């Protein structure tokens, strides 16, 4: 039977049974066969492969406030769902779909993928220091998951790839929280002191998604520079593995945040000064927070105990300099290289950069 006859017969059967059959009349974009790209060599059926025909057309402005899937036919009776982001420039990165699949492919399990049995007593000072660092990273994981999660209800289905990727960021952040909690509670120590965390306010208070992104770049850059020193800081194989796996996750998040900000700068260069304002705020809070617990704990680890900590602080200063340089490096990738000349003066000291002339200082 020709297809049109099959559909007509199906409609008749449904109508005779009192069921709506309109959905069989919808002019569908027939013939999309994403499965053909799903080979083991291509990583299976990745989300990128769905973006063909109308389904791959990501609009500059999405004008539907319901949960309608991109490419489906609207039902005009559906209630509005309260989304607030309908602009591609505000959230987009071409990397999203791929990063989403990468996150799933790279998934790990803190219960089973960390060789916990390699933990061994390391001495009281070192254990205290590791646990203090674990407490602070754990706090950041919690904050990162909460603040990322709240954006999901703002972003419309037009930018589904972004939302899927942010879902992985929330989940990765949950793991960041719990793997460090596990480390603190598994080797004869306990949790340390919580941070003051004024520095996280730019994440919790952000009014626009891009504001949240630049604050995330700053905090993620600070963290990843630290994680990259895992080979020096880790006392055991278990810790080395934690540092590596967390670094892999944060690197993925930064790829998105950086690529999105690059996209925004390209699409809406008029927002450059506004974005600098957000960075002024984020940097000011970071500098003003003045919570040196992290760096002192690093000093104890690098100094192999409290006696060597004072001397090790010079090393810690270099690590903190690297954090600022890493942050500025990511901003250069976003076409925000001019930040180097506008960096918060306290952070300039951390990085060993020359002080700004008086008229160049940024008032906050």
């Amino acid at each position, binding site marked *: 039977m020709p297809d049109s006859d099959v559909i007509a017969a199906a409609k008749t059967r449904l109508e005779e049974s009192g069921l709506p059959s309109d959905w069989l009349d919808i002019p569908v974009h027939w013939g999309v*066969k994403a499965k053909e790209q799903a080979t083991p060599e291509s990583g*299976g059926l990745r989300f990128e492969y769905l973006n063909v025909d109308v389904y791959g057309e990501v609009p500059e402005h999405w004008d539907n406030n319901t949960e309608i899937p991109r490419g489906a036919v609207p*039902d005009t009776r559906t209630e509005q769902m309260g989304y607030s982001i309908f602009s591609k420039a505000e959230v987009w990165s071409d990397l999203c779909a791929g990063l989403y699949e990468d996150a799933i492919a790279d998934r790990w399990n803190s219960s089973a993928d960390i060789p916990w049995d390699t933990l061994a007593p390391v001495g009281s000072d070192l254990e205290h220091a590791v646990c203090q660092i674990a407490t602070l990273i754990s706090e950041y994981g919690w904050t990162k998951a909460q603040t990322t999660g709240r954006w999901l*209800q703002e972003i419309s289905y037009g930018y589904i790839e972004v939302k899927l990727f942010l879902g*992985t960021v929330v989940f990765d952040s949950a793991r960041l929280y719990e793997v460090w909690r596990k480390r603190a509670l598994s080797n004869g120590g306990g949790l340390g002191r919580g941070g003051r*965390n004024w520095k*996280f306010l730019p994440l919790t208070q952000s009014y626009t998604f891009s504001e949240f992104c630049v604050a995330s770049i700053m905090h993620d850059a600070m963290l990843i520079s630290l994680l990259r020193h895992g080979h020096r800081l880790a006392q055991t194989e278990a810790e080395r593995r934690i540092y590596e796996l967390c670094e892999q996750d944060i690197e993925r998040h930064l790829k998105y945040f950086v690529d999105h900000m690059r996209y925004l700068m390209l699409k809406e260069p008029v927002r450059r000064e506004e974005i600098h304002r957000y960075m002024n705020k984020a940097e000011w809070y970071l500098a003003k927070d003045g919570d040196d617990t992290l760096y*002192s704990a690093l000093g104890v680890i690098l100094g192999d105990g409290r006696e060597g900590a004072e001397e090790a602080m010079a090393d810690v*200063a270099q690590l903190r300099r690297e954090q600022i340089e890493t942050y500025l490096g990511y901003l250069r990738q976003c076409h925000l290289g001019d930040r180097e000349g506008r960096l918060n003066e306290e952070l300039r000291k951390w990085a060993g950069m020359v002080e700004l002339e008086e008229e160049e200082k940024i008032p906050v």
Partner: protein
Amino acid sequence: MVTVDKLEELNLEPEVPELDLSWLNLDTEWGVSAEPGRKGLTLQQINKSLYGEIPATSADSSARPRGAAPPEGATPRMTPWVLGDATETFSDSAALLYDEAVSRQWSSATDIPWDTMDELPEDIERAMVQLCTSLTEVEFIAGDVPGKWLPRIAADHYESGLFLMSQVMDEARHTDVFRKRALANGGGLLLQGGGGGLRQIIEAEDFTQMSSMLHILGEGFVQSLFRLGELIAHNEAEKRIFRLAAQDESRHVAYGVTHLKYTLDNDPDKAEEVHWTLDMFENTLVDPDQQNPGLAGALVYLLGDGDVDEGWRLFWHVRRKQVLEYLHRLDVAGLSGRLESGRLHPSLSGALDN
């Protein structure tokens, strides 16, 4: 303007952070150890001594991990308000369910045997992609909702927070896998749904009310359907999708049931509020104006493999199972009697007679 050249020329030594060792003498519990077990080092294994004590109430709106010492000096309020009473969000099973979620993550790209999908007759393919259009839509909202609540979960009740974070991930994968199925085999996306109560879930301003709608009734119905996925699927790929998605939904439903149980055990007065919420949500679910005109038809069509009479018969079998399982879950949670008291919506109680 300071140039890069000038910066390099004038590079200074970085400022050395002040050494403060006061954190070496804290009043937190010390000497805690945990040994990995058969499943590795799970949350349950580290939830011991002081660190495993769940406070009934928490006024802490910061991100400070439970059991950590408070910081010195002033701290900011991180969120306007938190759900500080454990009865509002807690579940005794949350830690276990999170651990399970982490160990059972799957990939829609590589864990579904997409190559088992042969071309289907056009009527069947259309019915399947209509069903998947509706499902990707439902799962989209199911991910937004826990995201909305995350900033309100107290860090002292972190187990529930972690569970909701895992749910965000699961729902992303469900949104993704049903979109993939719609676009994988020559079909496409069809008609959007008519709401079906999704708005009521997202607009709820009480966590337990939200959870009763989302986890117990909404996801419960979806889970019952997915568990009968064998009746709908036409190939191994579709069977696998329903099986894996059902496994995830089971965790979400379990969280909802155990949360409600915890709430009712500790705050029995909440029962009437939840009954009222379910009155409203059941009514919305069966309201013809809220129904996706394509969903019921597509489901009946798939269940009968094109035979609409047989499809109807199986549809009522599914609906009966959905209602029975729903009532059972409410019983387990301590909210029994909806059927006996005549409170269950007649359209649902009627399904039990079919």
